[in-house]
């Protein structure tokens, strides 16, 4: 669901340009910086209003770091984050507060992000205490409404986090994220820890809220099935780099980058009808402190050639809103494997 202006163009909510995040590795006697872990390397993308952008990749590819860097929870090494036409990465704390309200995050493990000794009602009401000047009574009423909104009951107000199931806790996480009417929410593996039946419930809730409040989501996940169901566009990351970006239909039907093709073929499908042609990637993700030369994927790529080891591929447009970084984008990896 996209919100378009009267000319049919989509409105940009968030624009990330050349974002980098390096973590220093210190060592030696004087604890000098010896090298860097390049967690996020040159990531740029746009997020439109009312849309869901999926960010997928293996663990350690930098997708969570990217989310945190956008929210300002991690300091950027380089690059800009433009939110509603304002560059927010260098704002002072006070100026930033205005934008922070509009950007929220839902975490993977809601139990870890709730104080086990604080009741749920006050835990949600805390957000209002920081950002608004509501009276205690108003706050309580607002929290009650929120609880109903996310499918919980009023009597849950006075309960502790341990009294809830995983799905209910994630609903509490969602309630906390939407309470200030944000326009942008980052879901960092928000449904990964849940059972499939509960996962479906939470995904449906997120979709309902999106339609009601015109929310934009950045949906970080390693589950490509969920991303296909939930998102409009997808960004594929590998070792801190974006390797492909495109609309869900384009990317799933005609993946350009060999990594995307391999990821899609590796998913176990819940059907038994056809035996698919599958590609197995060999080996693990390389160490991000010592990335391979040239294309970061060449060590595991089934169609890698000499050029890939030396030259880093450019980020190019191959179709409408469909980008990839590969010298041989569009070439199928399946022929080679046979």
């Amino acid at each position, binding site marked *: 669901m996209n919100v378009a202006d009267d000319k049919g163009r989509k409105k940009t909510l968030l624009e990330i340009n050349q974002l980098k995040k390096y973590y220093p590795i210190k060592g030696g006697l004087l604890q000098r910086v010896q090298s860097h872990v390049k967690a996020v390397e040159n990531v740029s993308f746009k997020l439109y209003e009312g849309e869901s952008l999926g960010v997928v990749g293996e663990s350690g590819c930098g997708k969570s770091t990217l989310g945190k860097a956008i929210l300002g929870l991690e300091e950027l090494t380089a690059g800009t984050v433009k939110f509603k036409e304002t560059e927010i990465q260098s704002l002072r704390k006070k100026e930033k507060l205005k934008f922070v309200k509009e950007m929220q995050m839902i975490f993977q493990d809601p139990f870890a992000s709730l104080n086990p000794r604080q009741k749920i009602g006050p835990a949600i009401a805390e957000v209002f205490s920081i950002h608004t000047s509501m009276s205690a009574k108003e706050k309580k009423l607002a929290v009650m409404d929120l609880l109903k909104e996310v499918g919980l009951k009023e009597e849950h107000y006075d309960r502790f986090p341990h009294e809830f199931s995983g799905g209910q806790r994630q609903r509490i996480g969602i309630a906390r994220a939407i309470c200030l009417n944000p326009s942008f929410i980052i879901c960092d593996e928000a449904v990964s820890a849940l059972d*499939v039946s509960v996962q479906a419930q939470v995904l449906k809730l997120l979709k309902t809220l999106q339609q009601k409040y015109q929310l934009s989501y950045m949906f970080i996940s390693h589950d490509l099935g969920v991303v296909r169901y939930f998102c409009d566009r997808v960004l594929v990351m590998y070792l801190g780099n974006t390797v492909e970006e495109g609309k869900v239909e384009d990317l799933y039907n005609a993946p350009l980058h060999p990594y995307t093709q391999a990821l899609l073929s590796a998913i176990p499908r819940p059907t038994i009808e056809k035996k698919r042609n599958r590609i197995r990637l060999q080996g693990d993700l390389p160490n991000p402190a010592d990335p391979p030369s040239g294309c970061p994927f060449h060590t595991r790529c089934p169609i890698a050639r000499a050029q890939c080891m030396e030259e880093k591929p450019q980020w190019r447009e191959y179709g409408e809103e469909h980008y990839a970084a590969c010298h041989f984008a569009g070439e199928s990896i399946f022929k080679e494997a046979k």
Partner: protein
Amino acid sequence: MGEALLEVKNMITEFRTADGYLPAVRDVSFSLNKGETLCIVGESGCGKSITSLSIIGLLPSNGRIASGEIKFEGEAIQSHTSEQMRQIRGNQISMIFQEPMTALNPVLTIGYQLREPLMIHEKLSKKEAHKKGIDLLKSVGIPYPEKRMNQYPHELSGGMRQRVMIAIALSCNPGLLIADEPTTALDVTIQAQILDLINDLKQEYHMGVIMVTHDMGVVAEVADRVMVMYAGKKVEEGTVEEIFNHPKHPYTIGLLNSVPDVDKPDFELEAIPGSLPSLNQQIHGCRFHERCKFAKETCKQQEPPAFDLSHSHSVSCWLEAEEVINQ
């Protein structure tokens, strides 16, 4: 039909709690043939892990098998002493756990942990065990096995650790391998590698495999037969074709519909409302009726028995009762 390897009959596993004994596995029966993979599916808390722990005799100290029979290669093992179980465990029945980091000992080298079962069960010398250990690491696809023998678990990646776990589990050529969510903590690309590995090794060693999982995709990939559990009970059992193409129990159908399908863009998710009842909750009739949209009056009063639809497919649901009787 192959040779029966494991037979579980009417097993009830209980836990001692402050509220008395609570059954976590209620009257579950199934069997497994040599060279066959059985997948046990269900949500967390449905008793699937406890079923596998009961078989291998690793229940927590407050758990016990209250009744029923577990026959492994024709021998009843449920009342074995812990010493007798130790002879079987790691030798004839092995287990792979979900989180390899917690299952491997962080202060011992990979080599030590690989040699241990070989020296205890196969009575190999240290030198022989070391050599066999290297072979095992090679067979699970670990590069530089000689170097890995002297490394510690934290030096390996998640996929590598899980491979080491598999190597240890296979070291004594077990007849039965129990894998409890072996790939849940891994990325899809690594998951695919591990599932292929388990499948290849199963064929090579002609093992029986019990795979506990909640991922229907994994089930479709590896299973020969599937057992669906809900709240401690078996609700449906059948071959993988029967379960995926003709699921009968509303819960099985619900599980299949709540997994988004990557190949179908217009897939509509159907969530199962509510959540799993807790162990101490008293439920009359079918244990699923509160979440079931087809529930009838009978479902609330009487617990459904298992109805056989074919020699391999059975389902515990009243909806099927009429059809079976009509036939």
